């Protein structure tokens, strides 16, 4: 994907990226001649399509770990399968895809969620095939907001926000 500043007829360069948030990325491009800026805002489908290419814009500095794509995209996985490592996006180019990848990769497990008994019971009521997916989503939500405990109220927040 390339952006052209029409008045200057010059390719625009990436200046800033934001997100992803709720499956959307913000990538700001600027014209180095006239300083105009334009932001690319992706919808979740576009983010996901880029994700499925399994490439890194910004350059692949080292060969990816074996089966990184499967390990980073499966919603539920055996415990003994190592989660994919965090992407190491480097380079000055567009980080569009590497951001998209990081949007769905499993985070390094620094945060340890503490589930209250009530919340854990409610989690157990979720069908088994979707439970680990829901758990991951709730824990990531709690981590992003700095919640130390996952309570039924936190679960309600997630449900209201994402419909989970």
């Amino acid at each position, binding site marked *: *994907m*390339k952006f*052209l500043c*029409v008045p200057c*007829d*010059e*390719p625009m*360069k*990436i200046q800033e990226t934001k997100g992803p948030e*709720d*499956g959307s990325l913000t990538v700001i491009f600027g014209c180095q001649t006239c300083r105009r800026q334009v932001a690319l805002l992706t919808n*979740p*489908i576009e*983010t*996901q*399509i880029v*994700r*499925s*290419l*399994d*490439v*890194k*814009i*910004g*350059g*692949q500095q080292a*060969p990816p*770990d*074996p*089966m*990184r*794509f*499967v*390990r980073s*995209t*499966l*919603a*539920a*996985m*055996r*415990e*003994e*399968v*190592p989660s994919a490592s965090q992407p190491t996006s480097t*380079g*000055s*180019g*567009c980080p569009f*895809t590497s951001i998209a990848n990081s949007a*769905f990769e499993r985070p390094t497990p620094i945060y340890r969620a503490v589930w209250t008994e009530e919340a854990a019971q409610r989690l157990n009521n979720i*069908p*088994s*095939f*979707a439970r*680990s*997916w829901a758990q*991951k989503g709730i824990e990531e939500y709690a981590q992003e907001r700095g919640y130390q405990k996952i309570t039924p109220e936190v679960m309600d927040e997630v449900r209201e926000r994402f419909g989970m």
Partner: protein
Amino acid sequence: MKTYRDIAGDAGSNVMGQVRTQEENLRARMAKIRLKVAVLSGKGGVGKSVIVANLATAFAMRGLQVGVLDADINGPSQAKMLGVRGQRLTFQAEGVQPARGPLGIRVVSMDLFLPSDETPVLWSGPTEGEGYFWRGAMEVAALREFLADTDWSELDLLLLDLPPGADRIPNLLPLLPELHGIIIVTLPSEVSQLIVAKSVTVAKEILKAPIVGMIENMATHLCSRCGAHAPLFPGQDSARLAERLSVPFLGRIPFDPLLSRCADEGTPILMSYPAAPAAEALSEIAAKVGEALCLPPAPS
């Protein structure tokens, strides 16, 4: 005004280069495998996977190095049929060490990633509702990783157990342009044969790989009283269908509950009950497949 092609490069990402690297890695891995053969069907439930497991066993019994890739991402069954469900995949820098089935058969299946029997293959993403847009791309990417990132080592034969239906067959084309053969499995039922004909057309016209032949599964059932074989389905003889589609007919496998039981137990019938009618039929079919693929014959 400049067009896309007037602007050099892609801001340093070299996306096309990354895709080429993926292809090169895949080619390098596949270069160590002498023969790649896909097994497909039209309808599901025709017994394709159990035939794959037993063909792999037949060739492993000859002392060949054999691998099985369960390409049925959403309905994986090879780990169960080859008795490796409890094994762990080992992740190393040079690739993932596959599970080891009977006679050292190397097995990779999505089943080896899933945490429980009830867990379906779901991809994480914010747009599950619109998954029809991207699910196919995710499956192809997963299949590419299974092929390229598995440390298959040197293999004489890799059998690919494809999902049922003609729609997924073209997925193989960018991954395995050098496919050495296709084996087709059908039932002697009109419905199965109607659909399998479509798969044959896709295999011939899109994959353009040589068709090793067609196998008729559940051809007859054995009367427990008199021992006579009787047809299980009222459809036409699959040999006639094969002739009409100009593909070799490899043989018939009778319906045999032992075959199913052995699959459930993870021990191929060729090893557990080699004298069973279904096992004998599978051995004869394996001999024809081996001949077609110029594999060394079974030791006498």
